[in-house]
C-alpha cells in the first residue's frame, strides 16, 4: 500500500499545488496523539484511491507558514487540493466515509 508522502515547506508548492492529480494533505503534529490514530485510516484510503489521488502529510510544527496560510487551528485537518486550489477541508476526527465522500466529490468534478 502506498504510504502518504511527507511534504515540507520547501516541497509543498511542487508536490501539492503543482500536482496534476488531486492531492490530499493530512495536517498533523507529533504531539497530537489522535492524529497518529488517524494515520491508519488515511493509509487505507491511500490504497483505495491509489492512482487517482496523491496522499501527503504535513507536520504543522515543521511547516508553520503553510499551516498559517490555510488557517489551520485544529488538527487533524485534512485538505484536498485540485489544480493548486484548496477545494475541501475536513476538520477533526471524522468517519472514514466522510473522507471518501469528499474524495469522490473532488474526483467527480
Amino acid at each position: 500500500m502506498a504510504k502518504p508522502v511527507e511534504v515540507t515547506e520547501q516541497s509543498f508548492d511542487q508536490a501539492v499545488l503543482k500536482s496534476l492529480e488531486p492531492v490530499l494533505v493530512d495536517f498533523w503534529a507529533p504531539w497530537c496523539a489522535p492524529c497518529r490514530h488517524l494515520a491508519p485510516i488515511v493509509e487505507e484510503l491511500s490504497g483505495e484511491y491509489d492512482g487517482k489521488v496523491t496522499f501527503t502529510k504535513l507536520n504543522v510544527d515543521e511547516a508553520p507558514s503553510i499551516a498559517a496560510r490555510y488557517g489551520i487551528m485544529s488538527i487533524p485537518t485534512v485538505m484536498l487540493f485540485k489544480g493548486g486550489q484548496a477545494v475541501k477541508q475536513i476538520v477533526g476526527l471524522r468517519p472514514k466515509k466522510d473522507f471518501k465522500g469528499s474524495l469522490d466529490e473532488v474526483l467527480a468534478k
Partner: protein
Amino acid sequence: MDSEYDVIVVGAGPTGMTSAMFTGRSRLKTLLIERMIPGGQIATTSTVENFPGFPNGIEGPDLSEAMLEHAKKWGATTTFTEVTGVRVEGDYRVVETSDGELRARAVIITSGADHVRLGVPGEMEYMGKGVSNCAVCDGAFFADSPVAVIGGGDGAIDEGLYLTRYASKVTVVHRRDSLRASKILAERALANPVMDFRWNSVVDAINGDGVVNSMTLRDLNTGEVSNLDVEGVFIYIGLAPNTDYLTGLINLDPGGHILVTPRMETNVTGIFAAGDIRQKAARQLVSAAGDGAAAALAVRDYLKQMAG
C-alpha cells in the same frame, strides 16, 4: 475482509477493545468495527490518572494503542466503517454498515457516547477555527492566548488543566456554583493561577471574525450578559449515547441508554451491550473495560449454548 464472524463488536473504545480481546482469547472469530479512531474517549484524553496499575498516570492515546494491540494479539481484526443498523436474520445478527453488510452469530454494542454540543450561535461556524472538543489535538495552537472551557465535570477540568500548559488564561464557564469533577481535579484547578472561573454562567454565543475572538456569557442568577475575550473554546458539557442506529430494535431508557441484564444481554437474543452506552451508574474507564469483559464472557457462554 470476510463478511461472517462469530462476534462483531461495534465500537473500538476501551469497552469494545476489551470485549474483542476476551472473545479473541476464547478463539471466537472477532471483528471490531470503529467509526472514527480507536480509543473512544481516552483517544483524546491527555492523562488517565485513575486506571489501576498506573500510579503515575498514562497518556490516554498510549493506553488505547496498547488496548488495541492487545485485542489484535489474540486474533481480533479491525475495520473502519460506520454501522448504520443491526437486524436479526434467523441465527444471524446482521450488522449494516456504510460499506455493506456483515454477519455474526453474536453482536456486542459498545459504541459509547459522544460530546454534546452547546447549540449556540457560532459553535458550528467556528468549529476548527477556535472551537474544539479536543484539547490534546488543539491546545498547542493557543500558546499564550486566553481560552475557555465549558463544563464543570471531570472532562472539562482535566482538559482545562491540560490547556494551562499552553494558554495564558483558562476560564472555566460552569452553569453551577461548584465543580462536579472529582475532588482531586477540582482542588488542582481551583489552586491553579492560570485558571479562572465564571460560576452560574452559560454561553449564549461564540463570536468571531473568521476565527473566534470572544464569547457572550450570561449569569444565571442576575441575568447579566457579558463578553469574555477568548481565542479558543473547548466544550465538555457532557456525553450522549450513540444509539440512534438502534432505535426500534433495542430497548433504550428515556436518556437513550441501552437497558441490559447483569450479563449484558439486551432485549434481543444474541445482541449484547456494554460500556458507556448502557444504563449504569459508574462511567469510568475501569468499569468500561470490566463491562467489556463481562459481555465477552456472556457471548462465549451464549455461543457454546447455541452450538449445543
